[in-house]
């Protein structure tokens, strides 16, 4: 296990990065020098001015602290939307692959069609109609991004149902729902989990994009909100938008690294000792 992690650079840095992000998430009040939800006395400080490592915004909120707290928002959005999207995808894909036949044909066609819909704009539309609370954002991202998970789960289920242990369980008289939830889904979960990390990265980018359009939750500090706000001060206070963007890039990269690493573990293509 540890050897696998050390051997795959992407997996190694991905896991390291996730540990880092989770520490920031848990220790935000300790790390952040100020509570960013409180407005400071100093208006618009530059980098390093008055003890503000990364400066402040026009309301005196400490940018560094905002970034630390913003990690909480991003991770929440990532995890909750990925859970929703994973759950829907696993159930729909599992049913399609496991039952096969006409059920599979119809569900696959539905999955394909939903993969073709412009997700981002649909999210934008729903959020603007239903209100821009952070919970709406999480739920809507989850509800609109399941098709990829479903496709992966379907593929897994298709191959798993031909495997001996599933056939054995069928012979022993387990009914279909039991088979699906006891054997098919647990054994086909791994590729979906690997894909979910990519989904998390995309969720973070989507939340940031929504915030940038003014559809973020105004009661919460998020990196996207910071960029949105900083947009008006690009020439006078570039640091507001700049560091928030850096935080997004780092976080998203970590999720991608983790996803690629997990995929390598699943299909180790580069086998050693080829030939002879």
């Amino acid at each position, binding site marked *: 296990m540890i050897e696998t992690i050390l051997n795959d650079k992407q997996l190694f840095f991905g896991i390291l990065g996730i540990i880092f992000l989770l520490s920031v998430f848990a220790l935000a009040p300790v790390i952040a020098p100020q509570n960013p939800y409180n407005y400071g006395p100093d208006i618009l400080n530059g980098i390093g001015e008055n003890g503000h490592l990364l400066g402040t915004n026009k309301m005196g909120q400490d940018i560094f602290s905002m970034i630390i707290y913003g990690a909480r928002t991003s991770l929440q959005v990532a995890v909750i939307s990925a859970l929703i999207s994973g759950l829907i995808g696993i159930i729909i894909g599992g049913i399609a692959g496991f039952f096969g036949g006409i059920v599979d044909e119809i569900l696959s066609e539905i999955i394909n069609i939903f993969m073709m819909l412009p997700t981002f*704009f649909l999210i934008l539309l729903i959020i603007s109609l239903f209100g821009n609370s952070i919970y709406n954002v999480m739920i809507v991202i989850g509800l609109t991004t399941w098709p990829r998970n479903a496709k992966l789960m379907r593929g897994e289920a298709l191959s798993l149902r031909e495997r001996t242990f599933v056939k054995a369980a069928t012979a022993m008289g387990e009914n279909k729902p039991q088979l699906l939830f006891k054997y098919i889904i647990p054994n086909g979960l791994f590729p979906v989990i690997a894909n979910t990390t990519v989904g998390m990265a995309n969720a973070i980018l989507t939340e940031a994009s929504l915030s940038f359009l003014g559809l973020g939750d105004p009661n919460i500090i998020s990196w996207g909100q910071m960029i949105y706000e900083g*947009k008006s001060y690009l020439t006078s206070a570039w640091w507001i938008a700049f560091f928030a963007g850096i935080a997004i890039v780092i976080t998203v990269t970590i999720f991608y690294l983790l996803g690629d690493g997990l995929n390598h573990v699943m299909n180790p293509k580069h086998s050693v000792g080829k030939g002879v």
Partner: protein
Amino acid sequence: MKRYIGKRVLTGIITILIVFSINFVIINIAPGDPVKTLMGQETDDPELRAALEEKYGLDEPLPVQYLTYLKNALKGDLGISIIYNRPVIKMITEKLSATILLVLTSAILSLLIGTIMGIIAARKEDSIIDLIFSGFSYILNSVPSFWLGLLFIILFSTVLKILPTYGMTNVRTSYTGLAYVWDVIKHMVLPVSTLVLIQIPLYFRIAKSSVLQVINEDFILTLRATGMREKKIFNKYVFKNAILPTVTTFGISLAYLITGVVLIEIVFAWPGTGRLVLTAINQRDYPTLMGIYLIMSVSIAVMMMIIDILYAMLDPRIRY
């Protein structure tokens, strides 16, 4: 082949119907009543309300309403923007050409640059160039497009004052002819660069991995054994096999660009549909937002259909 095209067109039509249905469902389950959604939350004009109710048959049962809605939408009637009091379809088509200019330019440039980078990286796998390209593409993949655009603005409005950072033309002058074209091109550089940079990873990854996969195929070994020159093997056999996935990628990229361009247009104040989206969001102009969503979805569905059929024609293995 004909059967495949038929099947694919049918899927396309179903996709479009689903898009319309989603829209219809959204109108009906949105907070407040549908008329309020269509009219704008702040306005309350009894005359307008009556007109809308009649037009959409809002006193009829839902299935009838659905059909009325579909009929209107298929005729190209996407409703009226309350804020501007103009048909939504008109407002969108006016802005479409500026958007299409950005989308197509960046789609083609990113296809070329990303694919060439991928091929180079694959042919020199594990070299310095490969490492640089791969790292560059990996990071770019994580960059929010609008933020990259903002970085360009910071850079070009403060340090390098050589390119315009907003709009499509210089409003203080009224160029004509070549000077106008040159002006537009200058204004395009930054938004197009942003979109291209964001798209590069997509093409880079697919080109690199498919070239690597193809050069390890058995038929390449056979061709080498025949004494055929590496150049010919690559240009004819590796290339045609490896480029096929890029066709599909082009579709995915266009689909992304059609919606993603909105953000970039807003960043660079490009006078396309993006600005329309932003004002519609700010003014709660739902008919316009929905109209844009419909048009985007329909164009993506049609485009994906064309790409899939094109792919089927290029790849002899697909015959249904």
